[in-house]
């Protein structure tokens, strides 16, 4: 049903309840697919809302919010990157506004965006650029499955069966 992302290898596409989460589509992607997905979304007239990261036990979950002007259909792209090497390709080549969001994410979580033309501290001072204030301590860090609701929602999407199967696998690996 999410036509915009056709042709992009997604790990999971899920429909979410707009009334409770504000998202219509939740899409899990491998880091390598982000640029392609962003390109597709750009063609489908989506505009970028924000990029940020969540700190989970499994790694950093980088979230991209996209929405369209005429149809309210918020898509959230979720990219899970490992803690030891948090690298995501930058989409600043497609959505120039992403440059700052990516820099902000680097400041707060230390996720590196490869290909960002200007990946230097944006909000944090250069002296404490490697402080990463939003990285959680082990005590309070939770795992994705305990916080984000995905499983039930996936079952609602009956659109693309291959993606559905992949989503299961993706879920399993994350858990």
């Amino acid at each position, binding site marked *: 049903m999410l036509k915009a992302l056709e042709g992009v290898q997604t790990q999971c596409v899920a429909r979410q309840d707009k009334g*409770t989460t504000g998202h219509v589509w939740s899409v899990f992607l491998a880091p390598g697919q982000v640029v392609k997905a962003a390109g597709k979304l750009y063609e489908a007239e989506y505009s*970028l809302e924000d990029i940020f990261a969540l700190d989970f036990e499994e790694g950093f979950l980088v979230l991209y919010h996209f929405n369209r*002007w005429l149809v*309210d259909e918020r898509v959230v792209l979720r990219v899970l990157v490992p803690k030891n090497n948090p690298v995501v390709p930058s989409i600043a080549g497609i959505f120039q506004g992403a*440059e*700052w969001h990516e820099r902000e994410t680097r400041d707060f979580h230390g996720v590196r965006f490869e290909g960002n033309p200007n990946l230097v501290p944006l909000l944090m*001072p*250069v002296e404490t*650029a490697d402080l990463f204030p939003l990285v959680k301590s082990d005590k309070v860090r*939770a795992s994705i499955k305990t916080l984000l609701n995905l499983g039930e929602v996936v079952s609602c999407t009956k659109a693309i069966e291959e993606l559905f199967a992949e989503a299961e696998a993706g879920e399993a690996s994350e858990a």
Partner: protein
Amino acid sequence: MSAYQNSEQMKGDFYTQKFEAGKRDGTLILNMGPQHPSTHGVLRIVVELDGEYVVRAEPVLGYLHRMHEKMGETQTWGGFIPNMGRVDYGHPMAWNWAYCGAVEKLMGIEVPERAELLRVIMTELNRLTSHLLWWGAYILDLGAFTPIMYAFDDREMLLDILQRPTASRLTYSNFRVGGLQMDVDDKCIEMIKAFIPHFRKRLPMYKDLVTDNLILRRRIEDIGIIDQDMCRRYGCTGPVLRGAGVAYDVRRAEPYSVYDRFDFEIPTQTSACSAGRYLVRVAEMEQSMRIIEQAIEMLPSAQGGYIVDKAPKPAMKPPVGEAYFCVEGGRGKVGVYVVSDGSKTPYRVKLRAPGFSNLSAFAEAATGTLIADAVAILGSLDLIIPEIDR
């Protein structure tokens, strides 16, 4: 010492040095800000000038960074609301609403009708103060000193009105999860009813004094083109996007609260220049007044109180989950994303500031213009630096 610091003995800080690396011959590198009079606080823009033409520009942020998102992770859910009043001093109620709306979404709280209407009234009044502040300051940037005083004359009346139900005049934090902090009194409604016709009479004066002024029009027309494609690439919203001809307003596009009940227009301009954004904001003031009038009419028949019964305590524990809620602020789409792990404090609060995205388009829009135009473009984006730096 961080990797981002340059050990060489050079003039200027890290950002200047980095910017200087790409300097062309015969150009001048100039630091506009952080104490420049027209950067509205502490924005700093490093510009490369060829004569007075801007060759390159790079905003440097962070001088007003307070790490609200980290504060969100250490405060209780209810205790974070005062922070929302401080994110954007121009239109704090939109932020209040975005945050409370996100938490209400998480907890599944239905806000009473009366509270929703009161929220609408106050947020729209606050939008008027925000636009008046912008209007005065923008004309001040363009060199006219008097209009800001006239704007503040009217804004002062609005602050007197808003002071009654909020007990504050600038950094409002009167929204609560499930409703509002206080109810309005009759006197307040009376004052609003008196204010609207007064302000309607003032608007033509604003138009004659400023909007129609030959000098002003020549200053802002065809300056700083931010067209639809650029808006999409940079994620610009609000008057910037509407000034580019897209009738996108969160109040219409994803109607929240009771906005679907009101009859109002979304003013747009197709010129995509500073003048377009200017005219959109001026036209929006009239629309806000229309909404307020309608809301006041609905108020007496509205159900419920100013806050939901059994309103959650500040130390509430919303159920596990995530929620994204956005509202239309004075500067564009204000979004708040919260994740709850079921404890007293949020797991993550992400604030999506419209000014942040709008400002990121500045460098592209200002390239090739005169430095005076750069000031005019900067002002037309309606920047509130605390919101951008958060």
